[in-house]
């Protein structure tokens, strides 16, 4: 109950703050080069390789986990700046 309420309040506040930003669902095209299409094709070919060389799949999962960790870390630094633990 209490936790639900706290989470709801947090989501409402953060949602209100970001409601002014545009919505983006695909990666941008820069200088005529479609980053989204290139990444989709590259990932598709990597999936084909991983179907045979299965350790690549596990390495990808590990890399993805690290990516999420660094993304969360950047996000925290962006939000609270110099008050980030370790600064």
């Amino acid at each position, binding site marked *: *109950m*209490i*936790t*639900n309420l706290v*989470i*709801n309040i947090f*989501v409402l506040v*953060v*949602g209100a703050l*970001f*409601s002014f*930003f*545009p*919505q*983006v*669902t*695909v*990666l*941008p095209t820069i200088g005529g080069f479609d980053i*989204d299409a290139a*990444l*989709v*094709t590259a*990932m*598709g*070919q990597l*999936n*084909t*390789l991983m*179907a*045979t060389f*299965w*350790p690549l799949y*596990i*390495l*990808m*999962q*590990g890399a*993805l*986990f*690290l*990516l*999420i*960790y660094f*993304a969360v*870390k950047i*996000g925290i630094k962006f939000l609270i700046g110099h008050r980030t633990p*370790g*600064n």
Partner: protein
Amino acid sequence: MSNFNPGNPLLQQTFAIEDTEAGTTLRAIDLYIDTPVGTEFSLYMNSSFGGSEQYADGCGFTTACAISTGPGFYRFFFNESTYTLPPSPSTRGFTLRILSSSSEGNASIWGSLGDTITGSCISNPGIFDCGDVSDAYLIVYDEDPGPLVPETDCIGSYTQICSFDPQDNSTTTGPTVDFRLEAYINPADISGISGIKITLHNIDQNVLLLGALSPSDIYLFEGEATSSGQFLFSTSTVIADGNYRLEACLDRSYFGGFLINPFANVIEGDEDCQSHQFVVGEGTFIGDVSQNGYDIFHELISTTTATSTVSANTCSFWYPSTFNIFKCGTFLLVPDANYLNITLNSFKNGVLTRMPWGYLTRTYNILTSTTTSELPVISVDVPIGMSTTTDIIDIHFDPNEMLAEAGVLLNDTRSAGGKNIRDILESLVQFSVAMAVLMVIIWDLTHGKAQEGPGEVTKNTK
């Protein structure tokens, strides 16, 4: 194998003697006996067989080769020489000899010399009292049956914990407590570098913090499964009166137990660690609180129903029958899984699709997609002469064909146990990658930022 079972116990005086075949070779006998724990006994064939009494291996007239641990089967071997059952039923006979101090004597338990044990030995005049044998019968083997496997239904198609004692929520009389663990180990789980670590851990709950820090915790068994099939462990230990939690665990291990993978699930459809809570003698105050707290904690974490009306009543002082401080606390603090799901979806749609998070979300979706694309085919025409139409070599390389053939080779190369490379190594690779990721995160958290020197201050001074 000629294996006859007299069927009804000897006390009921019926035998399937007619089921035996003339000339049957005797190699072993299973004797079912129901007699008090600690009764010592011996088994031999009567002299009518071969001219002299033939004792089972390890048995003698005054030497007990078996001690009763309760009703059940006991196997006796006659491996030193073989005996051929005589054709005539009237000349066959086995004798059970009871050698315990309170009752000693012989009883013929098969054959014409005596068909019954009715509380006293018969057939020979002046025979002794056979004591408290309440049931007995024979199973004869004409081939070596191997060691006796205790009757159990702990046989399955996958590794599992079948049972362990003391039972959950039981009370036992101390100070000596009998512990027992029965498990089944699938051969596929202990092949190659993989193994199964078995742990039986008795946790003292008569201390604070659910017994997590008690010096009285005992590891009753901790080791690797050395063979597949049924695993049995039993022991008796003296422990003080109070409340205890017995935990039985199966863990995935590698290289003979050198590495343990805590992330792998061993028991299909069930938890790898299972607990029974029991009381020895009389429970203690802290022990009772610890046991109830663990039960409630485990139940509530397993199924969260924080929005149900039943849970709401656990916080109401006006309903003393349903008020429960532990459940009330969980109702207030543990978020409901369904409601949490809705909230997180709102967060994803309202925040994570907005700039700049939208780019990260899209990148994550691409990286986690399972769509495949064909690899590019390399096809080059290389001129080797003057003519550009006839003097050319066509170099064509299709990596998709190469991958398909490599895949067949990798999948179909199997060990003697029927496992391919992936079956053997996948869990180890997963574990190694997980450990590497964890270490990178820990390194980044502890060393990610360069240290500033002491007294170094950044400010504008004029």
